[in-house]
């Protein structure tokens, strides 16, 4: 067992454009997946947090129940199966209909997958918000949706920001699974490079170091954002009134 470090550097330099292309796509998939997943999570987590009130009319009650079943099913399926399997299944299932490229399919799959995790994070965040906040909003006559959007979500997001941010780091790494449908992200590019030079150890060392660099960068960024979040809240809470 030996690692030829100078060789690793050489591989990196020789294939820099391939690696950079992979890095670009990996970051793109991680960022978009996290962002869209977050929006899905807000929607799904919000639906799951809506309480079924006795004052609701029959139709509203039925709709809320249906919403709950659908979101439960979604989370059950997408958290309970590997993203690699989801990618293969969804890509080939919808290919005849949508005629989509691996790139587009990859973006959709990582977003839907992240959404399932985000939904549970956001639901926990919503449940961490004091019930009195809800009651105060209700006592002013605010609707359930208004209460969620203006009162509960901002607090839930703040309370769970570290977990939300963690999904970005997970996605930087897990986007590698999308290589199975031919997305040219960092792992895919690494296998191409290694496949042509047969220096698997050195090539994957380069890859590992790049991943480590990206995740470290992301966690620094998240820590910074988190501290900014706290600062901002002290001076200015929301800008809808200004």
């Amino acid at each position: 067992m030996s690692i030829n470090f100078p060789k690793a550097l050489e591989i990196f330099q020789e294939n820099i454009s391939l690696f950079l292309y992979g890095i670009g796509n990996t970051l793109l998939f991680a960022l978009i997946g996290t962002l869209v997943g977050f929006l899905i999570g807000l929607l799904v987590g919000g639906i799951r947090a809506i309480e079924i009130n006795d004052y609701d009319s029959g139709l509203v009650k039925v709709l809320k129940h249906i919403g709950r079943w659908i979101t439960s099913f979604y989370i059950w399926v997408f958290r309970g199966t590997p993203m690699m399997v989801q990618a293969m299944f969804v890509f080939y299932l919808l290919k005849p209909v949508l005629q989509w490229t691996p790139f587009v399919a990859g973006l959709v799959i990582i977003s839907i997958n992240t959404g399932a995790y985000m939904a549970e994070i956001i639901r926990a965040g919503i449940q961490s918000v004091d019930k009195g906040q809800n009651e105060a909003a209700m006592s002013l006559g605010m609707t359930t949706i208004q209460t969620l959007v203006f009162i509960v979500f901002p607090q839930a997001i703040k309370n769970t920001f570290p977990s939300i941010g963690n999904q970005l780091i997970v996605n930087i790494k897990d986007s590698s699974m999308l290589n199975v449908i031919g997305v040219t992200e960092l792992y895919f590019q690494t296998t191409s490079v290694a496949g042509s030079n047969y220096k698997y150890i050195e090539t994957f060392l380069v890859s590992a170091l790049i991943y480590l660099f990206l995740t470290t960068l992301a966690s620094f960024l998240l820590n910074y954002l988190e501290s900014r979040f706290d600062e901002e809240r002290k001076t200015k809470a929301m800008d809808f009134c200004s």
Partner: protein
Amino acid sequence: MNEIIQIQHLQKHFGNLKVLNDVNFDIHKGEVVTIIGSSGSGKSTMLRCVNLLERMDGGTILYHGKDILASGNDVNQYRSKVGMVFQSFNLFNNLSVIENCMIGQIKVLKRSKEEARAKAEKYLKEVGMYEFADKASTKLSGGQKQRVAIARALCMDPEVLLFDEPTSALDPEMVGGVLDVMKDLANEGLTMVIVTHEMQFAKEVSDRVIFMDQGVIAEQGTPEEIFNNPKQERTKQFLSRYSNR
């Protein structure tokens, strides 16, 4: 009489425990009603039922003669006209003091930001919290929070303001300031229903005192009648526990 709210045969139970058993009373315009009674007598639950924060198991609540739970009536519209001040303040933690006072006006009453801000400033001045307008609501003391909560409720121009033990969670030195604000409101003619343990305050501001015991209204009358000449044995017993302190 000009009743704003009529509560008829109100029933509420938690499991097998009957918390409210056939409670009837009316709230008239301009009236200050205090509700006293020992813990667990159903005072707070009744107040929360009036604002529909608690589900009723029986009975009706009429608002200007109309059943608020009848289909076609907008529950949120009703709630915006019946303000609530909570024991635990419940200021919105993600909003500043003035935003707390504006959000309901903007989102529910559809007022413009300028109008909402002007109104919020007016009431923050009235409760003596104007200088804290741009502070984060989480940075205030309990007494300050409660005064902002009162201003927030007033901004909605409520017809009735419900107070659920507004001073019970406050440090003793904070109680006076909040009670003073409430006294001013009472003098201005605001219709108020106050659940409280502050007997002296109840004596001073009330037009009518309701004594609740074990889920029913045991006795009601003027402060003079209730505090000086209680007719029921249980009212006497309850009040003696306070006068002995």
